[in-house]
């Protein structure tokens, strides 16, 4: 699965995207796996309420299942316009 990071999430983790092999069933489980990796991931995911997630380029939520998902993206609330 491709995992993408944007804005300060990208900056904290230090890369824009990576390939992740996981058996996580939900977004929350994936987040727990990532947090356990290294302090920079733990820092980026410290406050989940400050983050948004998109699954295959559609806004979703942290309880959503990852079944069949090919692309997960984490980012702060959007500030377009």
């Amino acid at each position, binding site marked *: 699965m491709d995992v*993408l990071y*944007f*804005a*300060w999430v*990208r900056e904290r983790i230090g890369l824009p995207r990576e390939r992740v092999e996981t058996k996580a069933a939900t977004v929350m489980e994936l987040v727990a796996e990532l947090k356990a990796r290294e302090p920079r991931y733990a820092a980026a995911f410290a406050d989940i309420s400050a983050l948004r997630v*998109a699954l295959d*380029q*559609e*806004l979703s939520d942290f309880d959503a299942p990852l079944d069949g998902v090919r692309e997960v*993206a984490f*980012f*702060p*609330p*959007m*500030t*377009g*316009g």
Partner: protein
Amino acid sequence: MDIRVTAEAFDFAAEAQGFSGRLEASGAVVTFSGIVRDNADGTLERMEIEHYPGMTEKALAGIAEQACGRWALEDVLVIHRHGAMRVGETIMMVATASRHRKDAFEAAEFLMDYLKSRAPFWKKEVTSGEGGAWVDAREVDEEALGRWLE
């Protein structure tokens, strides 16, 4: 419907004129344009906008289609830049055209409310001296979405 995501500067006036010129039946055209403004200290060097290629285009098209479903619109234009831009440059614009002004106004506001909080763009303000600071999402922008959900 014309949706563009681009790193290039664009000419708001020329786009507005082109949009109006293509209309057949609309008496009312509303445009909104967002311009990079300086900070209170006058130290903004540039605005940098990051986006999510692929999702951005889908999100904008989805928002524009929703607007077309809710209001009687003849046409909709959305242009949004990403990358670096300086004070005074146009960040983005929307234009809506309808027979009646109420539809054109409401659709333009709807597009803006959704663009602000639901299209994957992130603004960073880079000031001279210091580095950059990501712009925080505003609670009032999230609240503005609420009125379209009634």
